């Protein structure tokens, strides 16, 4: 039975002194203790639990929280208090101690914002749906990002973190969708196909002119949406009615004129002079967002230049490809690309068919998208765009998107650029730290030194044995006898059944035989410890084991990949590609195995999370994640070597298991029996006590695991 009587101030004070390390921090906890002591037991438990959890992140935040929380309990929902604490800790992770303390101190502001938290839609939650929504609509493939306002630069749509203008979640979602559709409409129906910045500068008050122009465009685009997406249009009108938005009387006829099916942005510009002169303020429409002509102009200028090059280069590639299939006599003649108009399927966008020497061809998806994008920017495809680029006409750096070299990026200020971010489990906080680990994949530098040959010679007896055992594991087709259904009659069964029938006993129905083809359908990921502690013997043994294992797996035909992991602090987590799933076991891979060198520390959570996602992209009935390691999780100057690291690793393994992966660990750490059962479960690990036995054991363990 649990004790439900309230804790006394003394006990609470003791707890607080321990958690807040009063001995060193000299914080005053008596008052806090007495105010908590006045609460009900369940309230006390809730608060104390949170103070303890926050203290594992930062004592100062926990102290500030403890100062304020008891008073708040009376008039704030617990759910909100929890959100407030988590928000403070996330802020600490992202921005450091002072912004986090500010979050705690500014609880009033937090409660005001809590409406946003209950009724608002959060970008993180709806971003995925909105992106698919906008991809489903026609036109350029737009991107979606979180920004400080609602606007588009004609390639990326920006939405704020929270949209909370409407009173309910459902309506805020509709508002968000309307904003996305409006920005889409701007790119789709040519709002940017004008020289807007110059034209606006002709007005005395360019900012006012921009506002008026935007209002006119919004009216025009609303009409476009009414024609294209009538369901959404109805919802948009409903939102406006709920917000009591009306159109000034003097604007009614603008709306009418711009609602014509053939109205363009030029018509909005034409009406701008009249609207500008009108003293009435332009209507404020809830989903209109902002118009940023400068951002658009900059983005468009870069894109127009790039897409011209890209299209001509792609056409040259297309020509090369098609040439292979053309008769010889026409091979030397330069190909003529052309466009013919097809019956329109989309209003305002001419459907075009690409032709080569007059014959229609089906362009690849990327060429089709380029054509659409250029058409949206320029309203047409200028003829000079259709000349295939000559060899060497453009510097490939102009159009190729080259991934940045990881080592260079690490040294730059924006070291998170292009990296994947992974969360990490903080067991003290009992919550994830968001985007905590900055992970990058790198290649192992191959070393061609005949390591494989040397290894095979060294273990020649073992190799023969392995080959034999693994060959025996290969798919064997078995003939299943006495089946109720099958390809052939099982004569033995039939004879027996007939004898039974004569005899008067019951005749079996299982009279057939069938060939059973069992398919091994296994994908296995080897996650190899490349931490500094593997230097020397262990590293050699790991590399030898990998060679022997790869040889064995080649006999067996299972799909496998090998990645090494290492890290120094959460900002520099690295995974080293040794063999990807789609790579054959070739000279390069062998040289990479030979090139495995000890690196830094053993941060494990990120590696398990990333390799889980890699493994989950492979289609296989059984998926294994096998870790080769020499010790427990550890990292530089960090609490990762404590319980924290073990709990994060355990959480990552649980996530992997939940997605259908079987984790297994082979370790050289003799103390591993203390912590591995907690991580992998009682049976999913093996401790090898002598380093030089590793090569003998690994393949054998694999065989046992998969039969």
């Amino acid at each position, binding site marked *: 039975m649990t004790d439900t009587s309230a804790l006394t101030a003394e006990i609470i004070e003791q707890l607080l002194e321990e958690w807040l390390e009063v001995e060193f921090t000299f914080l005053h906890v008596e008052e806090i203790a007495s105010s908590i002591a006045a609460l009900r037991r369940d309230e006390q438990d809730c608060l104390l639990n949170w103070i303890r959890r926050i203290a594992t992140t930062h004592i100062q935040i926990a102290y500030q929280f403890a100062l304020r929380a008891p008073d708040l309990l009376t008039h704030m929902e617990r759910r909100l208090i929890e959100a407030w604490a988590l928000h403070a800790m996330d802020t600490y992770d992202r921005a450091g101690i002072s912004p986090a303390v500010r979050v705690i101190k500014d609880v009033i502001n937090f409660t005001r914002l809590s409406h946003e938290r209950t009724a608002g839609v959060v970008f993180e939650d709806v971003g995925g*749906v909105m992106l698919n929504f906008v991809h*489903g609509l026609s036109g350029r493939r737009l991107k979606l990002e979180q920004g400080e306002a609602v606007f588009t630069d004609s390639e990326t749509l920006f939405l704020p973190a929270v949209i909370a203008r409407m009173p309910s979640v459902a309506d805020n979602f509709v508002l968000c969708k309307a904003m996305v*559709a409006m920005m889409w409409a701007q790119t789709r129906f040519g709002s940017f196909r004008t020289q807007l910045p110059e034209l606006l500068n002709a007005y005395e008050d360019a900012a006012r002119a921009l506002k008026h122009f935007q209002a006119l465009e919004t009216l025009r685009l609303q009409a476009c949406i009414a024609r294209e997406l009538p369901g959404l249009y109805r919802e948009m009108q409903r939102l406006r009615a709920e917000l009591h938005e009306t159109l000034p009387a003097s604007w009614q006829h603008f709306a009418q004129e711009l609602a014509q099916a053939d109205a363009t942005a030029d018509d909005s510009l034409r009406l701008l002079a009249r609207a500008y002169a009108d003293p009435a303020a332009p209507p404020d429409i809830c989903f209109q967002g902002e118009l940023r002509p400068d951002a658009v102009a900059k983005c468009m200028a870069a894109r127009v230049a790039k897409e011209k090059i890209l299209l001509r280069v792609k056409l040259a590639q297309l020509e090369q490809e098609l040439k292979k299939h053309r008769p010889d006599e026409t091979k030397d003649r330069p190909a003529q690309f052309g466009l013919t108009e097809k019956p329109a399927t989309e209003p305002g966008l001419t459907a075009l068919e690409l032709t080569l020497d007059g014959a229609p061809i089906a362009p690849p998806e990327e060429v089709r998208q380029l054509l659409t994008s250029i058409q949206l920017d320029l309203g047409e495809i200028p003829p000079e765009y259709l000349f295939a680029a000559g060899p060497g006409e453009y510097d490939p750096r102009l159009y190729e998107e080259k991934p940045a070299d990881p080592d260079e990026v690490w040294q730059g200020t924006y070291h998170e650029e292009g990296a994947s971010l992974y969360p990490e489990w903080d067991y003290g906080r009992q919550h994830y730290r968001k985007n905590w680990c900055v992970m990058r994949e790198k290649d192992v530098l191959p070393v061609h030194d005949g390591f494989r040959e040397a290894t095979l010679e060294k273990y020649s007896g073992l190799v023969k044995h392995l080959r034999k055992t693994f060959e025996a594991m290969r798919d064997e087709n078995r003939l299943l006898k006495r089946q109720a259904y099958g390809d052939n009659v099982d004569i033995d069964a039939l004879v027996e059944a007939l004898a039974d029938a004569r005899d008067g006993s019951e005749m079996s129905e299982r009279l057939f035989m069938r060939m059973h083809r069992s398919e091994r359908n296994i994908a296995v990921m080897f996650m190899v410890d490349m931490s500094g502690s593997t230097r020397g013997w262990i590293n050699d043994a790991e590399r030898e084991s990998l060679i022997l294992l790869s040889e064995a797996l080649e006999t067996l035909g299972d799909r496998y990949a090998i990645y090494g992991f290492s890290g120094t602090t959460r900002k520099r987590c690295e995974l080293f590609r040794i063999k990807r799933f789609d790579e054959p076991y070739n000279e390069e891979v062998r040289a990479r195995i030979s090139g495995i060198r000890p690196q830094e520390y053993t941060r494990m959570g990120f590696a398990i999370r990333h390799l889980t996602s890699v493994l989950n992209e492979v289609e296989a009935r059984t998926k294994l994640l096998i870790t080769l390691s020499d010790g427990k999780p550890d990292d530089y100057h960090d609490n990762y070597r404590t319980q924290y690291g073990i709990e994060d690793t355990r959480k990552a393994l649980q996530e992997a298991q939940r997605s259908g992966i079987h984790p297994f660990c082979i370790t050289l750490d003799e103390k591993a029996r203390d912590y591995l059962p907690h991580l992998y479960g009682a049976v999913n690990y093996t401790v090898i006590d002598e380093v030089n036995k590793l090569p003998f054991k690994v393949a054998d363990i694999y065989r046992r695991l998969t039969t």
Partner: protein
Amino acid sequence: MEAHSLAPEEHFIREEPYYELIGQEIAIFEAAYQNKLPVLLKGPTGCGKTRFMEYMAWRLKRPLITVSCHDDLTASDLVGRFLVKGGETIWVDGPLARAVRAGGICYLDEIVEARKDTMVVIHPLADDRRALPMEKLGTLLEANDDFCLAISYNPGYQSVLKDLKQSTRQRFVALEFDYPAAELERKIVASESGVALDVAEKLVKFAQMTRNLKGSGLEEGASTRLLVHAAKLIASGIEPVVACQSAIAQAITDDAEMLAAVHELSSSLF
């Protein structure tokens, strides 16, 4: 229509199936048939391959024997097997052997789904030998002059395991199918389901939206067949958004986020 059973080779198509000509597929098929060449139909699911076969069977007045291939389909399932009856074994022809004997059209739907060793049994039928070796009987069955072999295949599946071998595909006259152009698709949806043309137009537009999503979360966009399903629901009085959700969105994906996005698209459109 009452349910009744009939032998596969008696399955004649008596009434003209609804089919809209897209290109020259009918002429090509007829020419291939006259020259005893087998035919391969390529195209995404639900674009009208099976309907085309029914139409051709009606046109050529041959019985149509369809086998939907699956990954456990063995050679015996196609050729035939011995069964036990009253203490004796008797031979029963499989659907392919029946078609070869009776001079029917044998249509192997989604051939890549069948096991690799199964595909090989059609090889001798698909070249100028036109014969089916029946190993278990120890005989060679030469095809009736009217026999025709057709297979279908969806190149959209990007799985290496489900690719058609060159030795198989290079025996066939290939006809490529795709979703019909918007105008034609609208006509098909309207006449198959009886909905008004403007509803059909919206459905086609909706299909186009889902096809835009192919590659960014959807394996395939909505097929013409799904559009017809949705249109039939609408014609029976179901709300268009609901019809799209149950006949199309749920049929193309299980992913919750994608379902939500597709739902937003359909509710924007109607």
